[in-house]
Structures are given as C-alpha cells and as structure tokens.
C-alpha cells in the first residue's frame, strides 16, 4: 500500500474523507436502530461512535486523520413496561436502544460540512497545482 509513500494533498484529503465517511456511517447506523427493542438489557442496541486519531507524516509535515476504531456508547438501554409486546420479558418489560436522534442528526450535519470543506480545499489546491504545471 502507499503507506510508505510520503503524504500528498491528495492522499491527505482521501484519508480524511474516508474517516468522515466512517463517522457518517456510524451515525446513520445509530439512527437506523433508533427505537429497536430487545427482551434483555444486554441485547439492546448500543449506539456506536467513530474515534479519530492524527496520522503525522514526518516526511512532508502533513497531518492526516484516520479513524482508529468504533466505540460503543455506555448509555444504558431504556426499560419500558409493555406486556403486550411480543419481545417482553417475564416481568413485561422491553429494552429500547438509547439512541439520541437529535445528537445523531447533528453528528451527520457536522460530518457533512467537514466533508464539503475537504472537497473544496482539494479543489482549490488542485486548481493551483494545475496552474503551476501549465505555466511555461
């Protein structure tokens, strides 16, 4: 892989865009699982969150970003008394995933803005590079 090659503006932006993609996918998975119920507390869906880390390239001085993993939230599932629910346990309780829809929406919006910013920065950089190349 081009891991050994020095980082350029292009690889820097590619990596950052992939990282934002992971973050957006995590938030979308959480939204998709909002309201899902389980018959046990352990079985309830717990929201995931992408964690980013800096990836410093000493050769070029650029600092890329990588998603170092997905972390499950510690938020406890909401217990709801609903004996008529087919998944209810012996006491008539179901456990609902602790997904904060608003927070997830904000996360997606923030990620989309940063993604947009990256694309724009790359566009400008590319245009300047082309101008430099074309000058005789």
């Amino acid at each position, binding site marked *: 892989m081009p891991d050994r090659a020095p980082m350029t503006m292009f690889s820097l932006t590619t990596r950052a865009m992939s990282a934002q993609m992971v973050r957006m996918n995590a938030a979308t998975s959480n939204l998709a699982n909002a309201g899902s119920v389980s018959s046990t507390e352990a079985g309830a869906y717990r929201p995931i969150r992408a964690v980013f880390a800096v990836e410093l390239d000493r050769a070029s001085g650029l600092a890329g970003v990588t998603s170092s993993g997905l972390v499950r939230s510690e938020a406890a599932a909401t217990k709801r008394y609903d004996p008529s629910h087919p998944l209810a346990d012996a006491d008539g309780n179901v456990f609902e995933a602790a997904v904060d829809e608003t927070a997830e929406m904000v996360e997606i919006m923030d990620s989309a803005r940063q993604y947009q910013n990256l694309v724009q920065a790359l566009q400008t950089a590319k245009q*300047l590079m082309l101008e430099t190349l074309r*000058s005789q």
Partner: protein
Amino acid sequence: MNERLFGIHGAALTLRSERMGVIASNIANAATPGYKARDIDFNAALDARISAARGAASDPRTGMVWRTPTMPSLDGNTVELSREQVAFAENAVAYSATLSFVQGRVNTVTRALKGE
C-alpha cells in the same frame, strides 16, 4: 541561481505550497480529539529561507506556530473551521499572485533568450 532568477518569489511559492498543506491538515483534523492546529508564520519563515539560501544556518521549521483558539473546546481540539477556511482562501490567492510573478519572470527571460 534560483534566488538570482526568481528573487524572493521562488522561496515564497514553496512556502505558500507548504502552508497550504498545513492548513489542509487542520481542515482534515477538524474532528480529531486533542489535535492542535498549526500554521506557518509566513514572514518569519520566508526570512529564514532567504537567509538559509545565502548560507546562514537556520532551522527549516522556523515560523511554525500553534494556533490560539478563540474558544477552547472540551476535547482539546483547537481547529476552528471558519478561520481555517479564511486562511486557506487567503493563502490560495497569495499563491496565485506569487505564481504570476514567477511566470512573468520566466516570460521575460524566455523572450530575452529568443531575442525577439
């Protein structure tokens, strides 16, 4: 030779390109916990480059500064997207300007060589 041909503009163009990379790194790390935004102090760095070209010893990383955030965030990240955007745009315009100086110089020399 480079310095005699392009004057200050050769070093300035390299430096503008490096600064573009540094600001792009900041934009890329806008959501990384604990990331400290960096920038290049253009005047200081250019002075260092020029004195290095004239033979004086200097650290190639002169002019690298940490950015002071207007409002620190809880996760230790000091990137402010709006500031980075403005800095990037300003740097891109300055790059274009320097590039046109270099181009003008090349054109002049080319014309002199052709003897038109």
